[in-house]
Each structure stands twice: as structure tokens, then as C-alpha cells.
């Protein structure tokens, strides 16, 4: 229950890892992100909450430069990554992403999925990539499935494998899109432990989630998205007990209702 803000003041003064200003994204006529501002500092765990279709996944994809943005800027460690001259692949090598629908490569085994990027995008030696992947698979309880193809795994196992795949590149920033959506409650707890573990180890994360208890537990900042805007953000303690906006209040009442 230690207040996540306690030692935070010193980090607030430093340049944030991720600084988003005025981000706008439209699909044709449909405006999906509208003037989004967001700061993520080193060690922060930012949870994006909001109803289905509010733009959480789109925001995460924009942060990973998987979607071209229509306006606004994103800075990673003080460097603008929305600049057309920037090397997108170099940026993506520093960011890890886990998708809502795992997106493991079906033609590779779990282990091969995990060593692909380290070996072919990061130049890690075969042996080291293998050891690193096996270590992480072990930690996530997947050691026994390393040589299987993803289709043979349960949904929860696939999702954990996808998290391991993202961690194998040792990203500075981890983007997680509803990674607990497909997990049974027992595994949610397990992944929550791991995410908390990662946060304690200094991994900076932005994650979209529908699991409010998860957000309350693990977040340092909670952002409420509605219609493509961040309507309100703050530490979970305040966001969940005393939200300012009427819309946030009604959303929380809806999702927290037993």
C-alpha cells in the first residue's frame, strides 16, 4: 500500500520516457484519437481504461509507430519519433508490444517466437537468445511448452508466451494491450505478479485493460479514455475513489458493479 507517488517528485522533474502531445488519429472520417496528451516517466505503469472502442488499442499502436498519426507529436527519451526522418525500426526495437490477440507466429515454436527478434533484429547470439528466452519461459511457467507450436497452447499460455516474446528484447518501454483479457482469474493473478515484478525492476509500461482491480493494483497513473480523448488521469487511489468527471464516475460505476 505504499503510495506510488511518494518518491515520484524527483522523477517528475526529469524528461519523461514518453511524452505525447496533441495526438490525433482518424480512420477516414472517423476520429479515433483526439488531442491526446500523455507523459510516461521511467518506472511508471500507466493504465488506460475506458469502454470498448474508446481508442486504447489505437493509442498503443500509435505509440509503437504501427499507425501513422494525423497530428501531434510523440517523444521517446526526448527525441521526436513522429518525425518522418526517424528510423521507425530502431524505435520499435526499443519498445516491446503485446497485442490483444497474441499474434504469435504460428509457424514457429514458442522458443523460436521468443528468439526471433533478439537474433534477427538485435543481433544477440543464438545461444544467448536461447538462454534468455528459456529463462523467461521458465519464470512464466512455460518451460514445458518451449518446443511446441502456439496453436497447441491454451489461450492463457499463448498470452504469456506473447509477453515473454516481448520481454526477450529487453525493451525500455513495454506496451501491453489487454493482456489479461483471455486469462482465467488464477492466471490473471500470476501475470499481475509478473507485471508488478517488472515494474519493480524498473520496466516502464503502458497498458490497456478492462480489469479495474488490476489497474488499481498495479498502476501508478490511470487514464480514462472516452471517445478518443483522455478525459481524466491521476493516481489510482484518487481515480477510483474520487473521479472528477461525471463520465468517469458513471463508467466506473458500470464496470465495478458486482
Amino acid at each position, binding site marked *: 500500500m505504499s503510495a506510488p507517488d511518494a518518491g515520484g517528485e524527483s522523477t517528475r522533474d526529469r524528461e519523461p520516457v514518453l511524452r505525447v502531445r496533441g495526438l490525433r488519429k482518424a480512420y477516414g472520417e472517423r476520429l479515433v484519437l483526439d488531442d491526446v496528451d500523455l507523459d510516461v516517466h521511467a518506472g511508471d505503469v500507466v493504465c488506460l481504461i475506458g469502454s470498448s472502442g474508446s481508442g486504447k488499442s489505437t493509442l498503443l*499502436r500509435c505509440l509503437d509507430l504501427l499507425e501513422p498519426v494525423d497530428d*501531434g507529436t510523440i517523444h521517446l527519451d526526448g527525441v521526436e519519433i*513522429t*518525425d518522418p526522418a526517424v528510423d521507425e525500426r530502431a524505435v520499435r526495437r526499443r519498445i516491446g508490444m503485446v497485442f490483444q490477440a497474441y499474434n504469435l507466429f504460428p509457424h514457429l515454436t514458442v522458443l523460436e517466437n521468443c528468439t526471433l527478434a533478439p537474433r534477427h533484429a538485435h543481433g544477440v547470439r543464438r545461444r544467448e537468445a536461447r538462454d534468455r528466452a528459456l529463462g523467461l519461459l521458465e519464470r512464466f511457467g512455460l518451460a514445458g511448452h518451449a518446443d511446441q507450436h502456439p496453436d497447441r497452447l491454451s489461450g492463457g499460455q499463448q498470452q504469456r508466451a506473447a509477453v515473454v516474446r516481448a520481454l526477450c528484447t529487453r525493451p525500455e518501454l513495454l506496451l501491453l494491450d489487454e493482456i489479461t483479457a483471455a486469462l482465467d482469474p488464477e492466471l490473471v493473478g500470476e501475470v499481475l505478479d509478473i507485471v508488478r515484478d517488472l515494474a519493480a525492476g524498473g520496466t516502464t509500461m503502458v497498458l490497456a485493460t478492462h480489469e479495474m482491480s488490476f489497474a488499481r493494483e498495479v498502476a501508478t497513473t490511470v487514464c480514462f479514455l472516452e471517445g478518443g480523448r483522455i478525459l481524466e488521469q491521476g493516481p489510482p487511489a484518487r481515480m477510483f475513489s474520487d473521479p472528477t468527471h461525471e463520465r468517469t464516475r458513471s463508467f466506473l460505476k458500470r464496470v465495478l458493479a458486482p
Partner: protein
Amino acid sequence: MGPSGSGTTAAAAGAWRPSPRELERRAARRRQGRRRLLLASLSTLVVLGALVAVVVTSPGWPRVRETFFSPYHARESFPAIVDGFWLNVKLFVLCQPAILVLGLLVALARGTHSPWMAPLRLLAVVFTDVLRGIPTLLLVLLLGFGMPALELQGLTNDRYVWAGVALVLSYSAYVAEVFRAGIESVHPSQIASARALGLGHVRTLRHVVVPQAVRRIVPPLLNDFVSLQKDTALVSAVGVFDAVFTAQDYGLYNFNFTPLVVVSAFFVVMTVPLARLTDWLQRRVVERERAGGVA
């Protein structure tokens, strides 16, 4: 610039203007685009120029130009080639739908599971194995000369028609395999979802499997059809006066091979529209159905 009259929130939302940074970015992207275009044009020019230079400066070029690129012979042979090419086009247009239907039937026959269908499955396997194994040219010769020789009652003795039948049989075997590969590439979970929705085997195939398979097999199918367009030239082997036979005939009579180059140009021109059409179809599918792709 000023909002005149009753500016509502909707109007305000519609009145979004790109920020200066965005405008700058767009300008930078345009500059990047121009630079890429310039580089592409330059490198293309250099490579093409070098190739042309090598050919034109080669010692045999004047003779080659006379025998293969003579404007006079091109003009002279042109009308006869057009007439002959019409036969090629007709053959292609008639064979193509027949091949699609027969190929799909063979593929579906191979995909049946019921024990009653075993003879049909066997027939389909033999069909593809045998007809894919025989060189198309041999099949054209066998049917083109063999069937009329049988003097069967009620069947045509036209070698042109039998050559067409040979093309249909040969290409159906190829296309059947393309269809089968497409059908098998649809993920089992798709079939499971369709079954779970209560669709039967045939409906699942018709509404879920085949439409997805078709999207995937359009490029290989196009490939086979371009190949078919060219293989209509095989009818020249049984003495049908198509474009190729006409050009050969002219060439041997006048000791000039320019008509062969003219026919080649005809074939290229015929295949290009099909290729562009497929590109366009593919792009439309991608734009409508796929999201989250990275350019």
C-alpha cells in the same frame, strides 16, 4: 478565418486544422517522396541506358536489327497476325471459365470425406496426377491429332477445338491443386467457428472457406492464367493458323523474324491488363479487411 455566426461544437470539431508541426511533417514527407522518386528515376535510367548501350554497340546488332526489328516486315505481317491472334484470344476466353469450374470441382472432389465419395476422390487424384504429369504440348498433339483420327460420330474433328480441350484438361489439373492449397490454408478454427454457428459442411465451404481461399489464391491463379494465355500458342503445333503459326509461316517464307517479335508484343499487351486488375483487387481486399498492418 474567424468563426462566423453560430459555431457549434460539431462545427468546431470539423474545423480542425493541422498544427504547424504536422504541416512541417507533411512537407518533410513530400520532400522525402520527391527524393525517392528522383533516386528511383535516376537509377532506372542508368540501368536501362547501360543495357541499351550494351545491345546497340554489340557487333551483330545491325544484322539482328534487320532480321528481328524490321519496320517493313512488321507492317507487312501485321494484318495476318491480328487475325491469328484473335484465335488465341478466343481460345483463352473460352478455356478460362471451363478451367475454373473443372479445377474447383476436382479440388472439391479431393476434399470430400464421405466413404461413398471414395471413387470420386480416386478419380480426382488420378486426374491431377496424370494430366499434370503430361507436358501440355504432348497433350495438345495427342488430342489435336488423335481425336480427329478416331473419327468418332457426333464429335467434332476440328483440331482447334481438341487443342482447346487439351489446354482445359491440363490447366484444370494445375488450378485444382491451387484451389486445394487455398482451401487447406484456411485455419481450422474458421471451420470450427462456422460449425459452431450451425452451418453444415457445404454451407461452411460455400460461405466461409471458399471465399477466404479465393482471396489467397488469386495471385497464383493469375499466374496460371497468364501462363495459359501464352500456352494458347501451343495450338500452332497442330497446324492451327494462330498468331504464332502465322508469324512462323511468314518468317520462313520471307527469311525475317520480325513477326515473332510482333507476336511477343501482342502477348505482353494481353497479359498486362489482367495483372493490373489482380493488383487492384488484392489492394481492395487488404484495405477493407486488414487493419493494423505496417506499411
